[in-house]
């Protein structure tokens, strides 16, 4: 199997499907306990309240989409040819305002402009194959 320029797409199962349905509508959802107002990503039974059966008392509710850079790296090589044209690209952990961490690319700037702690917001990128990805952009 030769490796192509086709990018890998999200692996979606029942637990994460509501998140990606939100992304397709350009809505950034997190897993929310409405009883104690704790937020999670990805799906979790509430760790503070008595969990309901199957954790089905949790809700995928719209979140702020705002956060700060907790840590980031700069990819200088592409493990797959599909990412060669993106080099150098940044993969980062975003500490969201609601608490959870979310990993994504920081786009729209040079890697040298990014600092740990910098404020970012989630933006949505639509691709030709119908996939939408939530990415992060520096708030200037």
């Amino acid at each position: 199997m030769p490796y192509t320029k086709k990018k890998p797409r999200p692996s979606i199962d029942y637990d994460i499907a509501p998140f990606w349905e939100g992304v397709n509508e350009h809505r950034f959802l997190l897993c929310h306990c409405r009883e104690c107002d704790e937020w999670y990503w990805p799906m979790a039974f509430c760790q503070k309240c008595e969990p309901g059966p199957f954790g089905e008392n949790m809700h995928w509710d719209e979140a702020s989409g705002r956060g700060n850079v907790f840590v980031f790296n700069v990819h200088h090589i592409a493990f797959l040819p599909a990412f060669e044209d993106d080099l150098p690209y940044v993969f980062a952990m975003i500490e969201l305002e609601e608490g959870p961490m979310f990993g994504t690319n920081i786009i729209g700037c040079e890697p040298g402009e990014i600092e740990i702690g910098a404020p970012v917001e989630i933006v949505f990128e639509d691709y030709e194959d119908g996939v939408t990805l939530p990415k992060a952009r520096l708030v200037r």
Partner: protein
Amino acid sequence: MKRAAIVGMGLITGPQPGRTVRRLEAEAARLAIKDAGLKRSQINGAIQLRRSGGGGERPVLTDAYPRVLGLPVNFYYTVGRGGCLAGLGVAHALAYLDLGIADYVVLTGGVDDFSRSRLSKAQGARGMVHMPKEGYWGKPFGDLRAPSHHSFFAARHMHEFGTTSEQLGEIAVAQRRWANLNPRAKFYDREMTVEDHQNSPFVVEPYRLFDVCQVSDGAVSVVLTSEDRAKDGPKTPVWVMGVGFGEAMAHLWWEKRNYSELAVEPAKRQAFGQAGIELDDIDTAQLYDCFTGEVLFQLEDYGWAEKGEGGTFVQEKGIGPGGAIAVNTSGGLLSAYHLGDLTGLSEAVLQLRGEAGQRQVDNCRVSLVTGHGGEVLSPGMCSIHSTLLLGTE
């Protein structure tokens, strides 16, 4: 619980093109059984130690080394989580020996990552893409292999404590100096300086090429038995003194503790408690070293250095030949061979038997072997930690 010991070992290193993992495992097990002075007919139980990596699962291996080799076992199955194999396998073996279900248990793990990565490189990819990365975390964002997220360890350590790339380079150089004493090591003939490390290209910044472990072909097998039989064999028994485990997911991963420490504390407490020893009793430390950053973290988390001072420790005290603590005396995953934590297990056995040649640590009586691996999610980087203590008494 009855005491148990490793009484035989087989070690296969170097490129093994054209050989399946199961064939490598069968051969390693054959060597281990022979080394223990046993016959195949005496082996009652077999466990496969299977490594997975980068958040992916090794494709299911049909067929199995005990069938290929011809071992009349009552049980066979697979354990392993990421590169954490030795501690899990030994804990299982101890239970079977203690219950009297088995007289001799063989633990074996092989990899063909070098040969397979050469094939995928010829097809345009880099690294261990032959181990498909599944899971719903970072794949579409180019979080493709271990350096894509493990580099966060180093990035955070640099941010919080001012650790430098040169200090990480000291770790790579120290292990290279050990590898220069190990004829089996991939980089036996190639010396490295901190300047070489600094001149090596960024892979995933802040990690340079020489911060990243290699991939290898090879296999390790060990035979364990209980105390009553251990002294019958031709080789010095290597006693299991203690084993313990820790797990990063014991804490909510967005507490972010896993960016500044590994789950060493419970694993160390359990294993050192069983053994009744202190850190100063360790003669060699075989610390899981998929990247230089993991070594730095463990030097701090085990207590050789204060948290945040691992960089200064490697510069001023040293972990190479003649250093304050002998770390990864084979050269480790970085410079010798990457057989998961079985690299460390095999090296501990050689050191405790006094069979480590030029790199032999004088009067080596206790060796620490750590295991590490298995992403819950990418940010739960290598969430399991295992501590295995082996000794001559």
